[in-house]
């Protein structure tokens, strides 16, 4: 599903975020990307989502060489990825429901079907009762769950999450992890970047450990 082959990423300022990283993730796997702040976790996720391009090596997602994708093809790649960003990137000038509807706006669904899907996604993350609220009215954990609902509403094959439990208490973090597990159980490939070692230990999943841009053995 996802493979990195000798991938390096050097930013224009000279900073090398990833160096010769090689790994692969099979469809339906649940994998953590662990490492200290600045280890290259976020860069790794950005390369998968074609937010950044590799300086060297090949990033293959669902059979596509992401580094070689034309700009016009990138949106179609991203539609198959559910992205949960650090800081959520919610739109605070619209309701919870409208935030979840956003990825469905450029799909082929009718408005009725899109609304049904959005409500189902909110149901899965336990926010069905808050659909009319503004995201600003939600707690940190609820905002993270809303970001997950938006990420999965298009039924992506891959779910990428960058520090999804940062700033959450243990209970909220556990709830978020349970949601990821639920999606994993229905066949979604899940890749979570985190520095929360307790969370990783509790889950017992495969871990890719990054240190200064390189994969630790």
């Amino acid at each position, binding site marked *: 599903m996802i493979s990195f082959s000798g991938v390096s990423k050097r930013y224009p300022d000279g900073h090398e975020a990833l160096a010769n990283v090689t790994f692969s993730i099979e469809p339906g796997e649940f994998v953590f990307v662990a490492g200290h702040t600045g280890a290259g976790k976020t860069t790794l996720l950005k390369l998968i*989502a074609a*937010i950044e391009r590799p300086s060297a090596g090949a990033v293959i997602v669902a059979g596509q060489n992401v580094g070689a994708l034309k700009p*016009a093809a990138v*949106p*179609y*790649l*991203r*539609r198959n*990825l559910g*992205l949960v*960003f650090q800081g959520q*990137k919610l*739109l605070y000038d619209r309701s919870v429901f409208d935030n979840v509807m*956003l*990825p469905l*706006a*450029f*799909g*082929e669904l*009718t*408005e009725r079907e899109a609304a049904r899907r959005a409500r189902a996604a909110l149901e899965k993350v336990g926010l069905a009762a808050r659909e009319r609220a503004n995201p600003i009215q939600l707690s940190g954990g609820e905002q993270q769950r809303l970001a997950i609902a*938006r*990420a999965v509403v*298009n039924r992506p094959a891959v779910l990428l999450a960058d520090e999804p439990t940062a700033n959450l208490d243990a209970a909220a973090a556990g709830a978020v992890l349970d949601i990821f597990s639920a999606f994993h159980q229905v066949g979604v490939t899940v890749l979570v970047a985190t520095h929360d070692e307790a969370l990783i230990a509790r889950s017992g999943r495969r871990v890719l450990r990054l240190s200064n841009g390189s994969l630790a053995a």
Partner: protein
Amino acid sequence: MRAWLRHHRRAAAAALARLAGQKAAAVLNALVIGIALALPAGAYALLESLRAAAADASFEPQLTVFLRPEAPRAEAEAVRARLEREQRVREVRFVSREQALTELQTVEGIAEIAAALETNPLPDAFVVRLREAAPHEAVEAFAAELRALAAVAHVQADPLWARRLAALVGIARLAIALLAALLAFGLVAITFNTIRLQILTQRAEIEVSKLIGATDAFIRRPFLYLGAMQGLCGGAVALAILWASLSALNPEVAELAATYGSSFRLRFLEPGDATAVAAFSAFLGWLGAYLSVSKHLREIEPS
């Protein structure tokens, strides 16, 4: 196809909502565009009014061939045949002396004099329209050739005033076109800036949309509708300003024209021209939006 139409419907609705959400700015923009467009539209309306008033005066090279009063009808037909053989001639119209007198009697200020005539002093004549490409020297040579015919009493060639008027109309048209082009550029710039501000206020939404798989075309669409709607509103304001201005001016114009025995009025644009003004304005709005959104969308990338 249905999904495509649905996307357009949503984009148009989103653009309308943005216009409605910023009423004051939308009204001001429409006013600025409308005032800018009203200038060339007004000049065009004035020119068209003058053209309509001078409809009887052809701006094409023209000859009037007056026949001798005693010329038999057969000789007149021979003149017609000669005229119709000529490559440079576009159209030949025979005006009989009776018809000429009748027409004279309808001309304001002359009707009474014409009615008082005991006999008809007017000759039969051919009004000859030449092709526009015919040079002045060739027209004069052709006129001289016609004068040599037995049945012809006099040939009046292409009056100088008509050529001067035609030249003035040409200059006026060019001036209007230049003014329109200049103001069109201004309109595009206004829309460009308005859309730039819209993009800046929606930067977060655009960034998130790009992250979750929206194409540039999808993101661009509501802005294009917004630009076109803004242009259309400006066009409507321009037409309203023009109509109001003509309504205010016409009583004074009518009074002045009456002193010259004329019923001249400034006329509002024909429906086709008015539609063209609105459509052109909408197109310019769309163009300004397209340029703006194309430039600024490239600058917004997810981070």
